């Protein structure tokens, strides 16, 4: 039967994994291999995708992919017992291998001990591990940095550097999470390229102790590279609390690399990890084991195949600088990058194909599945001897209970609507607004005191105007929105850190697929409500270029927090009784226009199906107060820096341009200013929208630098003039729609340019302006 035909709660044994290419390889790397037990937990509310339990963790898969997997119902065994019976060769002393410890050395030759790396030489550690295993938490502990930590697979989307506290010459690079060295997503390509091309001095491989089998899969591939390495077993506290443990010495002896138990969150074992890591880096102690196949495993077909390929390609590997064991495995898996780098001759390629065919015939599995099976067999041999598996963890039980509601068939969508509604209600109607009023009172008081002081000191009117009308009015009008922005970021980070964001992706996948997107796209899009820059960056977690491009193009339709000041400013002036409704309608318009654009893009530029939805669902976790406060501080600091840099500069420039004419004479009427004359040239374009005023045009142009400057510019240009006497509510609503949809700010465009290139960035600017104008025009026609 097919995996898609399983009933909820039913278990089965995988017989074969169909499909082809990178997705199939990814499934194999995630542990979906023949012989493995799988249990169906539930379907998403719309009937697709499905949530499976495999190798002790939860995986989501679409029905279309599940149809490619053949299973046998009700198999009780989770692993291949024949393979488990094989006694693995011990590569270190079992009592206390002491790998990575002072005075102990991997190699017994005197040269290895007496010739460490020269003192003061720069040491670089690559921090590698699966997604969501705590790499960034460890990175923060090691370096004292303040990187954002999430509870969603793929929070880290590019590498980050930092020096270990107390060791300025030792650098750590936090790489994005990867499941294997077979590149599937662009972040996995980033990590793999770094490890293979940049040659770090050593690797710190962080392994989630609560999900050790799947995590060790990457460990084995890293060991094949022959780079000095230490394994950090993270979340040991959680494992022990649930009755499990790891026999560290035995695991160290079986793997042949130092293994250090740690809890990165509680900062336990981190000092010991640093000592071990420095030792193996200074003495360049490579893993004692790089060979995971066994001559007795299923007749030794894979073992003979791999060793034959290693002999066949040894000279090419030396020339290309690729470890031969790693190259052999990758050649079996059909890795095109390695194949190209080795530059094999026609004869060698043919010989390679013969070896592989022979192995497939003897082993009874295709080549990719055989290699994945070989690695997982070795892992099972190690874990059956060194790991006491925990009972079902408290965290998992809690997650299951919560998921009954948050991803339940009838409750998931209402829960999503209620939670998102609550986020926006608390931000824009209660907590955020209360804090904003408090802030406004403070700024008003400060402005008044400054104004009186300037008058008392008899400051010249021009300078007085520059300080109060230019700087205070410009920066102050934007600054009052700080509480709203921090509030929204707080709630968005809570959604991400608790693990709910991953559930939203699971629940919304089917809906998003109709728009040509994958469920994973929901995360960048939701982050887009905060800021477009991290949102565009977050799209890197998407495994296909098509989905990534489409998601980035749709990000600007999610109204970012920088636009809140514009909405709040006009809503308070023109629609005081319906301010909340106006704000909500703007968000809704953004989403609806985004959906329409997605449907158009799906049928034009991005034809074809979105990529499969294969994702791990993490347990729910309570975010650490320290992390949340750190994030809020970062966001507040970002905003304050923006207010005191770009908005400060723009306020002064706008004040100057509106106060002087082209002859550098101070004008009594702003209509004669430089600004009025230049903006007047573009103003006719906005005439059909009822916004032909040069001051509006100037504000919109300044918004390209940062959206908040729209309000500060308007504040400076209109001063005390009541806007309600100049514009109609309809014109202002058209203006709000235009602001919602027109070009993202220069920072977002720069990020899009970096991710997709200059042409796409220019396309976004033109497309957004065009759509914004058309929608604003539609508002004037309809209202």
């Amino acid at each position, binding site marked *: 039967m097919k995996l898609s035909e399983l009933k909820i709660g039913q278990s089965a044994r995988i017989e074969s994994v169909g499909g082809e290419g990178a997705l199939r390889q990814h499934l194999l790397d995630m542990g979906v291999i023949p012989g493995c037990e799988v249990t169906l937990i539930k379907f998403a509310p719309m009937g697709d995708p499905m949530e499976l339990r495999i190798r002790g963790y939860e995986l989501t898969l679409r029905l279309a992919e599940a149809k490619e997997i053949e299973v046998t119902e009700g198999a009780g065994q989770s692993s291949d017992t024949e393979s488990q019976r094989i006694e693995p060769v011990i590569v270190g002393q079992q009592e206390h291998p002491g790998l990575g410890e002072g005075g102990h050395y991997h190699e017994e030759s005197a040269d290895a001990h007496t010739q460490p790396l020269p003192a003061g030489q720069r040491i670089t550690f690559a921090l590698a591990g699966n997604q969501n295993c705590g790499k960034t938490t460890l990175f923060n502990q090691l370096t004292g940095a303040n990187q954002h930590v999430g509870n969603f697979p793929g929070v880290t989307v590019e590498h*980050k550097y930092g020096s270990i506290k107390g060791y300025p010459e030792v650098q750590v690079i936090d790489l994005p999470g990867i499941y294997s060295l077979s590149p599937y997503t662009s972040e996995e390509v980033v990590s793999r390229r770094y490890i293979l091309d940049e040659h770090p001095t050593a690797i710190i491989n962080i392994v989630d102790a609560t999900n050790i089998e799947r995590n060790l899969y990457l460990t084995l591939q890293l060991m094949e590279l022959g780079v000095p390495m230490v394994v950090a077993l993270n979340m040991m506290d959680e494992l022990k609390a649930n009755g499990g443990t790891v026999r560290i010495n035995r695991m160290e002896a079986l793997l042949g690399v130092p293994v250090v138990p740690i809890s990165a969150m509680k900062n336990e074992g981190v000092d010991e990890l640093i000592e071990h890591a420095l030792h193996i880096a200074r003495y360049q102690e490579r893993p004692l084991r790089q060979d995971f196949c066994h001559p007795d495993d299923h007749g030794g077909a894979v073992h003979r195949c791999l060793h034959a390929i290693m002999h066949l390609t040894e000279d090419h590997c030396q020339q290309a600088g690729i470890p031969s064991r790693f190259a052999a495995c990758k050649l079996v898996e059909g890795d095109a990058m390695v194949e190209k780098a080795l530059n094999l001759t026609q004869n060698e390629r043919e010989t390679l194909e013969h070896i592989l065919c022979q192995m497939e015939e003897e082993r009874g599995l295709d080549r990719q599945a055989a290699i994945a099976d070989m690695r997982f067999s070795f892992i099972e041999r190690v874990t059956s001897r060194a790991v006491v598996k925990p009972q079902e963890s408290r965290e998992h039980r809690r997650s299951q209970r919560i998921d009954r509601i948050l991803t339940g068939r009838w409750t998931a969508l209402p829960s999503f609507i209620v939670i998102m509604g609550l986020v926006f209600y608390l931000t824009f109607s209660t907590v955020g607004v209360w804090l904003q009023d408090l802030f406004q009172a403070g700024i008003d008081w400060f402005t008044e005191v400054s104004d009186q002081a300037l008058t008392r000191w008899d400051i010249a009117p021009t*300078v007085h105007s520059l300080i109060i009308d230019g700087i205070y009015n410009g920066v102050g009008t934007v600054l009052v929105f700080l509480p709203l922005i921090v509030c929204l970021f707080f709630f968005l980070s809570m959604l991400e850190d608790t693990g709910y964001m991953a559930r939203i992706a699971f629940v919304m996948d089917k809906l998003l697929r109709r728009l040509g997107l994958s469920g994973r796209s929901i995360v960048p899009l939701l982050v887009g409500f905060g800021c477009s*820059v991290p949102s565009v960056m977050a799209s890197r977690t998407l495994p296909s270029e098509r989905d990534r491009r489409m998601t980035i193009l749709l990000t600007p339709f999610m109204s970012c927090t920088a636009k809140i000041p514009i909405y709040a400013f006009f809503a308070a002036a023109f629609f005081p009784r319906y301010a909340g409704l106006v704000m909500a309608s703007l968000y809704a318009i953004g989403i609806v226009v985004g959906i329409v654009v997605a449907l158009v893009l799906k049928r034009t530029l991005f034809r074809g199906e979105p990529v499969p939805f294969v994702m791990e669902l993490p347990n729910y976790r309570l975010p650490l107060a320290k992390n949340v406060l750190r994030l809020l501080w970062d966001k507040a600091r970002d905003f304050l820096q923006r207010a005191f840099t770009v908005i*400060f*500069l723009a306020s002064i420039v706008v004040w100057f341009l509106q106060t002087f004419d082209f002859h550098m004479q101070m004008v009594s009427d702003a209509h004669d200013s430089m600004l009025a004359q230049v903006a007047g040239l573009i103003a006719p374009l906005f005439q059909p929208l009822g916004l032909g005023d040069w001051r509006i045009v100037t504000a919109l142009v300044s918004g390209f630098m940062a959206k908040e400057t729209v309000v500060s510019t308007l504040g400076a240009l209109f001063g005390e003039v009541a806007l309600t006497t100049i514009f109609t509510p309809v014109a202002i609503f058209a203006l709000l729609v235009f602001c919602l949809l027109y070009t993202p700010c220069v*920072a977002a465009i*720069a*990020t899009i340019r970096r991710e997709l290139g200059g042409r796409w960035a220019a396309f976004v600017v033109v497309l957004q302006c065009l759509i914004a104008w058309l929608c604003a025009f539609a508002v004037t026609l309809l209202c």
Partner: protein
Amino acid sequence: MNLQSILLLAIVAIVFLFVGYRYVKRQRNNPGCGNCNCDCSCSSTCHNCPGC
């Protein structure tokens, strides 16, 4: 214009030039959001930049 006005104007001008110089320099070094105060030339946005 009296002395205190000239002094105040000079302060604003110096701050404006200093902030402007730093902003342009950062934008050139770091094509990300350009808001942070770091001068490193890493390819990260300020959200990921270790110098921020």
